[in-house]
Structure formats: C-alpha cells, structure tokens
C-alpha cells in the first residue's frame, strides 16, 4: 500500500510571511495524482491544490504553490503572504489507480 508522510505535525507562521509544508509519498506507480486539502475548525475539507504526476510543471493557485519532485517522491506546499484564514489542518493526499491515501496532517497556526 502506498504511504503518505507529513513530517511536521505542527507549523507556525507570521501573518504575511511564507511557510512550506512537507509531504513525501511512496509508490511504484508512475501515473497518479497528488492533492493538498485544508480542514479549518469548521471541519469542512476543501481542496487547496492538485498536481498530476505526468505534468512536470508545478501547480499554482493564487498564494498556494507546490514543489513537486517526482523522482524524490516529494510534494511540498508553499503558502505565500499567509493570512489568518489559512489557519487549519493541511492534508497531503495520494490517488493512484486503486488507492487513496492521506497523510497524518499538519496543523498550521497563523500569528497576527
């Protein structure tokens, strides 16, 4: 089974600063999808960003961007100009052909 590892249980960032959340995964597949989901205190899971493994270009979505290193099986999330509303649990997720795995999550705190 594929595993997804988020090595930072908690992270903290000052408002307006930049923070990077780490994610590594294990797979023998070459065609898969990677996601970052956000879960604020409201409990609702929301997609932040998605990356197809066959695409070399890193995905970006406004202040959110990823650093996808396929050979290293690394998929980090960079949040620029952090805002108070970014405070949440962030989950990295892997989707293969028959497998769906989430990391254990990183709790992000944003300090005003």
């Amino acid at each position: 089974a594929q595993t997804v590892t988020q090595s930072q249980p908690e992270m903290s960032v000052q408002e307006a600063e930049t923070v990077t959340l780490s994610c590594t995964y294990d797979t023998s597949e070459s065609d898969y999808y990677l996601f970052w989901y956000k879960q604020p205190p409201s409990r609702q899971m929301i997609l932040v960003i998605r990356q197809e493994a066959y695409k070399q270009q890193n995905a970006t979505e406004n202040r959110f961007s990823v650093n996808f290193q396929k050979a290293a099986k690394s998929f980090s999330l960079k949040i620029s100009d952090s805002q108070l509303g970014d405070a949440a649990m962030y989950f990295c997720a892997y989707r293969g052909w028959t497998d769906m795995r989430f990391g254990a999550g990183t709790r992000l705190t944003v300090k005003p």
Partner: protein
Amino acid sequence: DTAVSQTPKYLVTQMGNDKSIKCEQNLGHDTMYWYKQDSKKFLKIMFSYNNKELIINETVPNRFSPKSPDKAHLNLHINSLELGDSAVYFCASSPRTRETQYFGPGTRLLVL
C-alpha cells in the same frame, strides 16, 4: 445549494445498536467515497463507488456496509456499533475516479 450533504450531522447511540448515515451529492459526479476520521484527525478511506460499482474496499470490519441505490447516493450502514467506531465520517464525491474530491460536512458519531 449544498453539493455533498450528509445526514445526520451528529449521531449519539449506544453500543450494539445499528445505524445508518446517508450521503447525497447533486454535482452529477460518478464516484463517491466514505472516509473515517479518528480523534487524532487521521483520515482513512473506507469505500469508494464508481457508477454504483464498488471499486475501493479497504480493510474495515464487515459490520460496515455501503449501499449505493443510485449514482447520487452512497449510504453507510453500521451494525453492532462499538466504542471504537466513534469518529467523524465523511462522504465525498468526484467527477471521475481520480479527480478532485468534494467533501460533505461530516457526521460525528459517538458510541456510548
């Protein structure tokens, strides 16, 4: 309009009871999922259906049985509830099997 809805939002019940959680999506998606999120926020997939066909069936006790009457609905029935079943259960849907998932608000189940 709610895209993915779950009922009930909260469920408190006694050990040994049987209960169901309903999920409906109005997005026209082909694929639906059930997840369990434990008290440490760990999110684990339980089942996935594509066009009413079971495609992911993780190792969960057979007391849990999904039922998909049509593409828009995926219900979760749990027999003989145990204390360890206490968790938040999320339903999700995606346009196709490996695309972005849209999550419901979750159902918090407490077994006493």
